[in-house]
């Protein structure tokens, strides 16, 4: 089923998506998306949405279930506090990608802005997975408490050379896999750097495989590149700031 989003408000668009779903549609294509916000927010089932154009902020906010594919760029807050489902972006992402995400998968072909993966969470191994194909900016993975965040650096101005600063400040869970090298002054004090274990390689390979499935490229070529793992040094990074 197809919906033309040209000239309609986000409220009307989201309402018509809900109506379509209520009438049994499980595969919806939306064309001419131009800045409408909160798409995919209130669809609690595993529907498939294909969006053409530029969705507005908070795409998939609080999302639980749907699979969204975007042919275009996405803006800020994509996957905000997302619970489950997936968002695949054939383009770039704005700031705060996957903020406070609790589950689900986000794959971005291009780069992401600031604060990607901030405050991601997980419980007993179930957590969000975010893969950014291009570059990510400052405050990547800030306050991370769980999940997996991958930055491939395959495109962007300084492809392969990480320029983000304040990476992982306040990190106390989860893991970040970065292609290339990163200097200690770019990282939060709470962040440790290590080589990938076999387990890590398996996790990364799975995510790289998914990325290539959607966006092309050779998984083996990517896996042959140099990756580092960022992990939290302390369970309680701020434990010593307080006196009891």
């Amino acid at each position, binding site marked *: 089923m197809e919906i033309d989003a040209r000239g309609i408000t986000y409220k009307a668009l989201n309402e018509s998506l809900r109506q379509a779903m209520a009438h049994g549609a499980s595969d919806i294509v939306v064309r001419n998306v131009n800045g409408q*916000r909160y798409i995919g927010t209130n669809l609690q089932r595993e529907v498939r949405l294909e969006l053409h154009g530029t969705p507005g902020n908070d795409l998939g906010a609080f999302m639980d279930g749907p699979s969204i594919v975007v042919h275009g760029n996405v803006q800020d807050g994509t996957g905000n506090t997302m619970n489950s489902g997936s968002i695949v972006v054939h383009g770039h992402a704005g700031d705060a990608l996957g903020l406070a995400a609790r589950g689900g998968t986000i794959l971005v072909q291009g780069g992401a802005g600031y604060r990607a993966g901030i*405050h991601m969470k997980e419980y007993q191994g179930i957590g969000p997975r975010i893969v950014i194909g291009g570059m990510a900016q400052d405050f990547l993975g800030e306050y991370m408490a769980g999940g997996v965040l991958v930055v491939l650096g395959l495109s962007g101005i300084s492809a392969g050379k990480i320029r983000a600063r304040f990476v992982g400040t306040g990190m*106390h869970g989860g893991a970040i896999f970065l292609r290339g090298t990163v200097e200690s002054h770019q990282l939060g004090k709470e962040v440790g750097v290590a080589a990938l274990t076999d387990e890590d390689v398996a996790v990364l390979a799975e995510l790289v495989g998914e990325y290539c499935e959607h966006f092309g490229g050779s998984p083996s070529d990517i896996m042959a590149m140099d990756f580092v793992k960022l992990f939290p040094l302390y369970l309680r990074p701020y434990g010593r700031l307080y006196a009891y």
Partner: protein
Amino acid sequence: MAAMMKSFLPTKFVVERDPARCINCKVCVNQCTFNVHYFDEDDGVVRSREENCVGCHRCVVFCPTNALTIRRNPLEYRANQNWQPEVIEDILKQAESGGMLLTGMGNDKGHKIYWDHLLLNASQVTNPSIDPLREPMELSTYIGRKPDKVEFGPGGEMLTELPPQVMLETPIMFAAMSYGAVSLNVQKSLARAARELGTLWNTGEGGLHPSLAEYAPNTIVQVASGRFGVHSEYLRAARIVEIKIGQGAKPGIGGHLPGEKVTSEVSQTRMIPVGTDALSPAPHHDIYSIEDLRQLIYAIKEATDYEKPVSVKIAAVHNAAAIASGMVRAGADMIVLDGLRGATGAAPKAIRDNVGIPIELALASVDTRLRQEGIRNLASLVVSGGLRSSGDVAKAIALGADAVYIGTAALIALGCHVCQQCHTGKCTWGICTSDPALTKRINPEIGAQRAVNLVRGWSLEIKDMLGGMGVNAIESLRGNRLHLRGVGLNDTELEILGVKSAGT
């Protein structure tokens, strides 16, 4: 490793045990979690390590023979208005630890309590008072955005579609206290009490434990900066969704649940590793402007089909009036102002004691400003921050509040003695702890009964006050500053509060 420092901190409390009454039953030994009482095997008597006492009175209340009392250590310093004992001891503590001093509960400094300077009216002669025993007094309160006008059709049917409204049987709700800051049994007690009273309780920023899902129709869920426990089920179950921007105990900084209190159950509800500090960052990292706030408000409205009021809670700070106006225009259906004396499970003492303003002043100026701008109807105004009695509640409503939140008062009803050790997780009353051995000390059935009793008592008192004023509905008191007079207040204070001086 640094050389071991001897602590210079003097003992705060002295335990007085009456030997004529003490039967060495060891109840105090079992009840104390601060390692004060112990049984001396050799001498066969119970003794006390007074240096550990925090003044929580658990042992006093539970001693079967009333053998115990607690006194402040009568250690006399040379009189000094500037260098008070507490200040001296804070410096010593900091010299010994090098960190931010943490504390629990609300501001305990002697800032003016304006409730104690405001007095209510009663009807005499010119207006008759109404007898609440004979005539019904209405306390019901509707929370939600009210439209600018209401239109009716030819048959008397209402044409205007009302935004979502939530009815409270009494204008008193239970304040946000997160799971982790307080125990599950405390939340169960308040949830049950809220259901019985026909009012609401608030989950705080720790998420909603699955065992409390049955209380959803009486639940306000919070979306705080840490987004703990926030998922679509949570949002859809709630009666009201509240975005927490700040709280009175620690305006401007985020929340902090010490790792000691993050047990596996807390970890599961919050989705963070066990034993880690649960930090809610200072701002929501997707709210950096008023437009961003509007974005989150509408994200929540979209996620909940526009079926529930969305509340925004801030600490009472400078320019609260302008901030509140912005929040209302950003789409909030309910505004919560939490004043200087609001409590917390853990906050840096320096922030708790120095940041924020009293709720009475914030309330008056916000209500006045919203009325002046003609937007007072767009959001319900709820206040909190150390409200202690039905008198405080009635005065808050007279100053303009639609309803109030009580936090500390509700915990005191459950047994809290305000010893300010919440951040240690060792609460002997079983209130603000995650230790399963201690949380058992609160029985939710009894806890609910106590909370219901408190709110019922206050509600009856408010009804008496209303009748005394010659009105029969709380709506007639709401924002009606003419029913208040001030005593011991200067002109500026009277002007901000919008009340006249007693005698005029």
